[in-house]
């Protein structure tokens, strides 16, 4: 997808956008496969270094990368 607004550098943004878009599509299709009435509202990926949160919508996608407080 195309990044509209970002505060990271361009290449990182493009990478995140592309990868997370695909992942979100996959997650959404998984959720709907299990229960067609269901839909994906939020996706959180927690890794060793930080947490990536994705809020999907019909047309747009909001991605936030946070350092969890530990």
């Amino acid at each position, binding site marked *: 997808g195309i990044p509209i*607004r970002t505060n990271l550098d361009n290449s990182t943004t*493009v990478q995140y956008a592309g990868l997370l878009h695909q992942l979100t599509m996959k997650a959404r299709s998984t959720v709907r496969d299990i229960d067609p009435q269901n839909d994906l509202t939020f996706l959180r990926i927690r890794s060793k270094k930080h947490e990536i*949160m994705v809020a999907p919508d019909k047309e747009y996608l*909001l991605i936030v990368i946070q350092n*969890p407080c530990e």
Partner: protein
Amino acid sequence: MEIIYVYTRKRSEFGRPCSFSDRPAKVSVDIPPDPGMASGFVLRNPVDSSVQHTSDMSEHEVNTERVEVESRGVNHVEGGWPKDINPQEVEQTIRFRKKVEKDENYINTIAHLGALMEHCVKQNNAINVYEEYFGEEEVAEVEDEPPSAKTINVISKLTSFFDVLLPKRDPNVTKRTATHLSWHPNTCKKLAVAYSSLEFQQNMKEMSFDSYIWDLENPNKPELVLKPSSPLVSLEYNPKDSHVLVGGCYNGQMAPFPSQAYWDTRKGGLPVEMSTVEFSHRDPVYGAIWLQSKTGTECFSASTDGQVLWWDIRKLSEPTDTLVLDITRKGLLENALGAVTLEFEPTMPTKFMVGTEQGIVIACNRKAKTPSEKITSTYSGHHGPVCALARNPFYPKIFLTVGDWTARIWSEETKESSIMWTKYHLSYLTDGCWSTVRPAVFFTTRSDGTLDVWDFLFKQNDPSLSLKVCDEPLSSLRLQDNGCVVGCGSKLGTVTLLEISSGFCTLQRNEKNLVNAMFERETKREKILEARHREMRLKERARSEGQEMEVEEMPVESPHDVLERTRREFFEVIEAELQRRARAETQPLHGKLKDHAGEEAAAQGEETQLPKDREEEEEEKDAA
């Protein structure tokens, strides 16, 4: 039986129409059942009849298509732009972005998503959802399983091996004792075993001199056969160069062997060099250990002729250094004690210890200036030869000696007696070693074929695990470096490998602290006892010297006063002792031991006063 009904008609009446009429039934023949015929038949009971009621099944094969997985890299290029906008041009992209930002839908969506995201971010900030909640509890899993060990491999010399290769040999090959085991330093998959007959003047004509290197994966045929000129009594892998082994022979020579031959076993079977007979030991070499040196070629050996020789294996024509184990420190060979085991700790390169036939352990310092100073201290405590000597890998000041019927643990500081010892067993103890992973665990083997595993944090009077390995005496024991597998060699040459349960191989919680505390406590107790002994001895000496003087000193105090004083002191001491004992009983176990040690010393100190008081009383009575 035929049923015949004759129907007659005149010829002239042929062809006339028949007229049928009903007639009631008439019995033509009645055949009653004849029971007499039943004897020709046999009643069948039960009658087997099969009935099946199952659902009908059909067979159907399914084969999923094989998924082919391929790794591919993805190159992220900006895509998804509408056709009219060139992603490389910054102006166009900026314009597009601005346009999108003005879109109402966009604004609504972002507001909505933003709110959602904010909620989650705040959640994250508030608590850490994925923290380790039960981290400590995982560690607290106690090993509930009972200690056990299972045999994983039994290696015995196959006599048929000899029949096949050397048919001229006597088929009953004399069984030889597996006297020494050494694990391969890195891989721990190979075991070198030295075989020899330790019986004095045994008939050695039919006995072969070979020693073997076994690969654990193939217990039937040794990987490598070592052929020295005289049977090997001890055998050790070089920890630096795992292809070289050094062996100490029955006739006193030393022989290094390369074992590098996976492809040509004959080349690796012969020793590289043998030490010359003139300069070697006169008796079997019972201990041979590699030294820690830069070249990795130095080793030293000890034997029952009372000498310890240092060698460099590149030049085995004469030893580089010698030491005579004479505890009178005169260096005389006649007084020397025969050495049975040798111990060397790589972290303390100048010190080493020797266990002797006479039951004395000698600690020596290699770098001493004069030969008389080389022997630093002696520890005597065994009634028979010290079969094994090992330092605790975690606490190098503590070492274990195994000899006669007991195993004893010593601290380097207390020279008079061992700090801990096992009870006297029914059979000789033949070998022992510490566990490499747990400081409180050690193993001993007995001459009735039992392997004992001792854990003195768990039980102090008995071994934690006692396994009967075989019927013949076990002669040697060696623990693999990972601490889980132990190999024991028996008198008839069978080497059994046992895997001990994981309770013995994993370090328990707090174990190091507890073991440390225990050792310190016992050392302290011994020191106090030593001090008391010394005091008593001094007093004995002083008393025997000053006995002439005492007769003159007596009339200073009137006898009656002295009696009063001593009686008072006596009762005071008794009361104090009773109070202390009562106090001690209410305290917990740990404290009790410490108190006991202090108590004992205090009580015994006072007790020594008591007999002295009484003696003084008696002497005064005699004088008065």
